């Protein structure tokens, strides 16, 4: 059984079928990508995985269990974290608080601990703050720990979202267009970061428009067009596929 698998997943919004019978398997430790033109259903696929939407039909398997239809917080607890296409940081919390909020699901403080600031609360807060600072360092934001997320430059915000997602100790990290709005230098750094995340033992599944980045780091790519998977394979295979070229450039005369 695969580590992560979409199995014949379909999502229809009324008459509009956003994702149609898509299957895709990812092995532990891979960097896998999903590409496709705007409106191809990529983000919908992510939203199905994290529980924002419930699939109309089909199965989603993760680490030996079915997760289709689970609530987002439960999916996160099981070990899947994500970033968002249009950054959704906690704008007026500091960078370190954003990451600490990401640790929430791995913390054990109960209502009483929060209310009375028990020794358990104190020890945990200290450990979580250290963990958050380590993660900020990992993504290169240690100097911005006390800045509001809102005040960070765009590229930093994307990195902060990654740090916040990593705070929940995910086994699978979903990155929704992580390179959007980045300059070539930032994209280079991002590729290094994604590889470093994989080397920490987290499997990475990304959606991206930037072909240079996708072809460079992905071991496996699926191509979506109008909600359907039209191709799957290594970067070289995908690049050579006639249907992919057609989807992106249109039919030749």
């Amino acid at each position, binding site marked *: 059984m695969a580590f992560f698998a979409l199995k014949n997943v379909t999502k229809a919004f009324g008459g509009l079928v956003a994702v149609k019978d898509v299957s895709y398997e990812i092995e532990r430790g891979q960097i896998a990508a999903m590409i496709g033109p705007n409106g191809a259903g990529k983000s919908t696929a992510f939203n199905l995985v994290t529980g924002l939407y419930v699939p109309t039909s089909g199965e989603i398997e993760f680490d030996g269990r079915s997760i289709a239809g689970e609530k987002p917080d439960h999916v*996160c607890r099981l070990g899947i974290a994500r970033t968002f296409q249009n950054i959704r940081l906690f704008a007026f*919390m500091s960078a370190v*608080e954003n990451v600490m909020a990401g640790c929430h699901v791995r913390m054990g*403080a109960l209502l009483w601990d929060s209310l009375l600031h028990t020794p358990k609360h104190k020890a945990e807060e200290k450990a979580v703050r250290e963990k958050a600072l380590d993660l900020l360092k990992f993504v290169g934001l240690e100097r911005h720990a006390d800045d509001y997320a809102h005040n960070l430059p765009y590229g930093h915000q994307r990195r902060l979202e990654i740090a916040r997602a990593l705070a929940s100790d995910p086994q699978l990290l979903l990155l929704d267009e992580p390179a959007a709005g980045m300059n070539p230098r930032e994209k280079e750094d991002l590729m290094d970061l994604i590889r470093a995340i994989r080397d920490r033992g987290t499997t990475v599944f990304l959606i991206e428009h930037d072909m240079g980045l996708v072809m460079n780091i992905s071991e496996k790519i699926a191509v979506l067009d109008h909600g359907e998977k039209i191709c799957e394979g290594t970067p070289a295979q995908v690049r050579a596929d006639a249907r992919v070229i057609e989807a992106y450039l249109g039919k030749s005369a």
Partner: protein
Amino acid sequence: MLNWKRYRPVDWALVAVAAFMPFLPLVDRNGGHINVLVNAGIYMMLAIGLNIVVGFAGLLDLGYAAFFAIGSYTYAMVASPQFGLHFPFWPMIVISAFVAAIFGIILGAPTLRLRGDYLAIVTLGFGEIVPQTFLNLQHLTGGPNGISAIDQPRIFGYHFGLNPVPYYYLVLVLMAFSLIFANNLRTSRLGRAWMAIREDEIAAAHMGINTTTAKLAAFALGASFSGLSGVVNASLLTLVSPDQFKFNVSITVLSMLVLGGMGSLPGVVVGSALLSILNFFILPQASNLVATVGLHIDFTQYRFMLYGIILVAIMLFKPEGLWGSEQRKAELKAEEPAVQAAENLAYEDIPRETV
């Protein structure tokens, strides 16, 4: 960790006033003044509770007086001749807080999917339903007459009578605890979860925060503070009736938060102190003062007009509140450039069109 440089003179002033409060009855022997402060304290506890729901978790609640009513009636029913029950006061403080918290969950549960205006309207409805229910459950609550001759607290054989001083110390102690608990919550795992939900609920859920439990915890904990103040209120007045918990109580408490600064605990204290003193002291005194020169104006009748003026002025000149949190200030500041940019754009467009 204390960082002494972060404290401004005005912070020290608040600390000094707070430190002086226990000695006030020794200096000021006017029972009327003490009574004003006891009432201010009751409202302050309500404001601390509402601040958890509105300020911390960002859930606009316009029916908060409902929990105040529930706290007051809980004590009134079991400590008065109504049913011949005379439960002791002290455990009832905790029990009423629990009862109010349970109703916080009951009333909070149906609103979980609602946000913003919709949530406000539903909570407004609850705020109306609860006093109406107490009004109509005649055999339990005494209907419009309410419940009277409620027991007053006793401690070591000392009976709290008409003297407001023991109530003053009671309220002072309860308030100190309320502030400590509220501040603990703010800087905890749960407080961070509330903040995250207020900032972006969908992102919070994706970070593993169970938004259902976190919101219910906010409703329950927020309500529990009004349970506390309800017990004190009932025993102080020795009378509860449905008209004490009308919509204007919810609005008064909310106005205190807006005046002081939502989400900021010093703001809550300052806002509720100012409005309470205006309400219970300045307005009646002003009426008395003009009466001495032969004018008969009851300024307390103009209370809500004054609140309106104060709130408009705050919104215009200090929208984050008199003692707003840094966070709120930054949020409001961030909104400005967008508005400015939009205005600039609009102005730029006009000449081009007309030329």
